[in-house]
């Protein structure tokens, strides 16, 4: 008889307990889904900038949810109120949960006070993607940039986040850098909080 097992059936998702987060998704399944996402968006737009914006928006929705879920699950209900706090939260906790490892590096920009960079030797989402020459500087890491923007925006640190390829000598594939540029109000509030 089907359903004779001991699994408890919940009538409504609100009754189910929040999962502990130990579940893993296969990389190939994700890569397949992500490639379909990119291809679908390609048919809907006319230019590269629009495609990048759509991927970013898709990531933004993920980021907003990831922020709430992780603060509740992994940080025992403590919010981040400082700039460095939220950046290290993104760099370690968010990256660990999404990609299985912490990001390679977190740096502060040298030219501007409001710029920070998270670098990764190769973004997980880009592993099975190759960009044709006629697409120029397009980077599917825009999805990850959207996730970071969703997290920062949700926590009250509005920022412009973009993904760039940075060529590294000695390596065939370029490194990916997520560039975070915070809005003016964030720096003013940071200065006020001391």
């Amino acid at each position, binding site marked *: 008889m089907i359903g004779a097992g001991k699994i408890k059936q919940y009538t*409504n*998702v*609100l009754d*189910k307990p*929040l999962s502990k987060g130990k579940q893993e998704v296969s990389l190939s399944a994700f890569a397949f889904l992500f490639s379909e996402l990119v291809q679908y968006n390609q048919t809907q737009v006319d230019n590269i900038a629009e495609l990048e914006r759509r991927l970013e928006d898709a990531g933004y*929705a993920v980021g*907003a*949810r990831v*922020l*709430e*879920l*992780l*603060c*509740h699950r992994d940080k025992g*209900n*403590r*919010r*981040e*109120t400082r700039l460095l*706090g939220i950046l290290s939260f993104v760099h370690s906790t968010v990256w660990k949960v999404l990609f299985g490892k912490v990001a390679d590096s977190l740096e502060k920009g040298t030219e501007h006070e409001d710029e920070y960079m998270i670098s990764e030797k190769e973004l997980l989402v880009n592993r099975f993607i190759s960009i044709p020459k006629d697409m120029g500087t397009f980077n599917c890491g825009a999805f990850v940039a959207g996730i970071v923007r969703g997290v920062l925006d*949700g*926590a*009250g640190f509005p920022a412009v986040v973009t993904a760039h390829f940075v060529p590294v000598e000695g390596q065939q594939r370029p490194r990916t850098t997520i560039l975070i540029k915070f809005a003016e109000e964030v720096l003013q*509030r940071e200065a006020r*909080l001391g």
Partner: protein
Amino acid sequence: MASTACFMIVSRNDIPIYEAEVGTALKKEDAAHQHQFILHAALDIVQDLAWTTSAMFLKAIDRFNDLVVSVYVTAGHTRLMLLHDSRNDDGIKSFFQEVHELYIKILLNPLYLPGSRITSSHFDTKVRALARKYL
């Protein structure tokens, strides 16, 4: 023992996305408007206070006559606000934590737009049950 209590969830953009009168006292017509007004007036105080601490439960932040406003701020700056006349701090904290979990489950729905009204009747039922249990 009759108690007045008005519970509201206000999003990051100061738009109420859920409200419920959960007290056991008799409901008067104008009291509901007054409760909403008091909660909205407290939003300014919450905004300033939220940046001074990394805790989520900010206890009683404002008073009006004998009514007290208590607030719980989530990571995404969604505010769970409760207007009440009791002094049961622990009960209120547990109530907020349980509603927070319910809110996260609603938020995880990919078809739910963050910041829009919560229309699920199941959510409403559960919040009222929690209010009866903890308040």
